């Protein structure tokens, strides 16, 4: 399969990842729209204090920065970040009956992308012996906290995906 010059990654793998990232961004945007419309939770900046008390972790993509791109480290951080966000999304279960279907699809799409990257890491022999565990998920004490947590988690996920998209686009450049 044709390799992208900027990396030793198959072009079809990168095109698939880009498609999946766009899908997850669309899923995330839909969830944000519904949280705003139904529950008036429209701005993550209004939930910073709550976020501190919930202790929501953040995923780093330091190995993917354009100045110091380190491919295997970047793939591993991409995969680790997706596993982290999948765990956070799972902790939102019971957010509300109307939002549940959108949340389910978002989780499935994030899982698919994480698996796609993991299998590519295995093909590159750069995958660690075992998959990273998502770590302890925050506990949401009320329906409000699950919804507010949903706004915070999805907004962090969107920022993470923005970075990921840029890296994948760079790697896929012919």
């Amino acid at each position, binding site marked *: 399969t044709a390799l992208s010059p900027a990396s030793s990654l198959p072009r079809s793998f990168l095109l698939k990842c880009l498609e999946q990232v766009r899908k997850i961004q669309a899923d995330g945007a839909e969830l944000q729209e519904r949280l705003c419309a139904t*529950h*008036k*939770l429209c701005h993550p*900046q*209004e*939930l*910073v*204090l*709550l976020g*501190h*008390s919930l202790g929501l972790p953040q995923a780093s993509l330091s190995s993917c920065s354009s100045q110091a791109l380190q491919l295997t480290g970047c793939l591993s951080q991409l995969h680790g970040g997706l596993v982290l966000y999948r765990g956070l999304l799972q902790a939102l279960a019971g957010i509300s009956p109307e939002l549940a279907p959108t949340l389910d699809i978002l989780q499935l799409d994030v899982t698919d992308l994480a698996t796609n990257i993991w299998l590519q890491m295995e093909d590159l022999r750069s995958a660690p012996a075992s998959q990273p565990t998502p770590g302890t998920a925050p506990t949401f*004490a*009320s329906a*409000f*906290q699950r*919804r*507010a947590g949903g706004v915070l988690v999805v907004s962090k996920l969107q920022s993470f995906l923005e970075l990921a998209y840029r890296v994948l686009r760079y790697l896929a450049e012919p």
Partner: protein
Amino acid sequence: ECGYISLPAPIVRLGDPITASCIINQNCTKLGPESQIRWKLETELQPGGRQQHLPNGTLQSTITFPHFNHSRALLSCCLHWGNGLQILDQAELQAGYPPTTPHNLSCLLNLTTNSLMCQWEPGPNTHLSTHFTLKSFKSRGSCQTQEDSIPDCVPEDGQKHCSIPRKHLQLYQNMSIWVQAKNALGTSTSSKLCLVPMDVVKLEPPTLWALEPSPEVAPAQPGCLRLHWETWKPSLHIEQKCELRHQPQRGESSWNLVGALPSRSLQYELCGLLPSTAYTLQMRCTRWPLPGHWSDWSPRLELTTAQR
């Protein structure tokens, strides 16, 4: 928890007062004298929260809406922080009315579905989620005493009718039936019906045909029509009487009624009509002499009487 709203009653009568408190813990953020709790209803900032610093270091604000007239609104407890507001908790406030008494309860025994279908009028909108349940029990005599219980019949969401399946019915025994309406603000019960399912049977209309002239059947006289009819098949075991109504298709004359007809007739001659005139005929039947409801009128049969 950073902060939480506590509500003595999240659901009140429309127009009644509603009070909410918000308590913010120290571990949420450094609470200074300048810390300010603000309330939002949906997206509107609300004046009038009474704030106090409690001995244990927590900050509490209480707000009262004297005449709450939203059927549903989202209340947010916020805190001034940096140059913006932080939302710390939300609660859904609701207001409405307790259910009024369901009325016009009526039931029909449907022989096709073999079930007793009861319907009622719910009364004015309560603005609250109100659940209706059709309750009943088997009885003797005039429904004073309960013999056997019958499971509650829960209508599909928002429906104002419910069907009690055949297996819960004794078709020829009295049963007491009523509707209960329930929401967060109360419960109300309709007046009770006492009925025998079979006595509220509603039949499907009979089938009415013209009798075509044939070797056995001489053509009708001028001003007469030859008909035959059959009652609805699932009701063949029920003794019935039927009614026939007819009117000329043209003009404004009202229906003419021919009553007390048998439930089945192989050959019937209807006379006293105008010759060579187009008539519309319909038939309906009811259980008789035992009680029952009249069926709807059968589909229209259009026939023209013979010339003189």
